[in-house]
């Protein structure tokens, strides 16, 4: 049984996480922008664009925060 202290498994866990982290933030940002565009303001497509930009920033932020917790 692998131990959490084992650097191989800890590193593998971190590596698998980073991709989904980037993608999920982008989807949430774009989705929020798109939903407000379509259902609330009718300002398509500007909030979708803004949401995607903010989502990308949030994704990078999440990845950065993850890297700060990187096991040393």
């Amino acid at each position, binding site marked *: *049984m*692998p*131990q*959490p*202290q084992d650097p191989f*498994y800890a590193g*593998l*866990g971190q590596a*698998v*996480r980073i991709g*989904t*982290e980037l*993608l*999920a*933030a982008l*989807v*949430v*940002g774009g989705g*929020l922008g798109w939903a407000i565009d379509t259902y609330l303001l009718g300002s398509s497509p500007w909030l979708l664009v803004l*949401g995607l930009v*903010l*989502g990308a*920033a*949030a*994704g990078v*932020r*999440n990845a950065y*925060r993850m890297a*700060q*917790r990187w096991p040393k």
Partner: protein
Amino acid sequence: MEESPLHPFELHNFIPISVGGFDISINKAVIMMWIVVGLISILMIMAGSARRLVPGKLQSLAEMLVDFIRGIILDTMGKDGMKFFPLIATLFLFILFCNLIGLIPGSYTVTSQIVVTAVFACTVYALSLVMGFVLHGGKFLGILVPPGTPAWLLPLMIPIELISQLARPISLAVRLFANMTAGHVILGVLFGLAVSGGLLIGWLPFAFTIAMNGLEVGIAFIQAYIFTVLTCVYLGDAFHLHGHEEHAH
């Protein structure tokens, strides 16, 4: 032989039950969940009943699992986190057993249904929100403002942090679901090739199926581990607001 690789993920109701318009039929996934819960209960009760100082095989397996989960909690949340041990141990064992049991040919992987993983992820995230507001009150909204942010950056940072918070349950749910589904699609396609290839060439994809199954055992374990670690991290964030963050400077 002309079967879609997604066919194994379709659910057919064995016993259709409908209560007030809600479909609560018994299907393959429900039965697999019962089996998993039963298996874990039997394993843990049997392992715990001996209580020997020098543990037998079963008892040392259970002790190893418990020690493993305890290690995760202590690493990510510190000593306070042990209050959540029952919740986190249950989540870890359930996901691990679902992942592993799904690898037995002919059975079903419950965690390849996004409903299941989404319910886990949303429960964990809702718990972390409720706990954060109970412990810190209105100050918990400060989780949206990273420490050291200048005031003129606030209009930019608050939407970004809001999105990064909302992305947490989604990435948690999608990661587990996608890894489990993708693994089984690959296994299905490879096995389909082996069957349609015949004896002459079919042994090659069949060998790959076996190798992939071995890899999937590792993935089953790693995904359960990641889900548990992230659960601890999110709960820990709500516990000590800005506690572990930004220490790198």
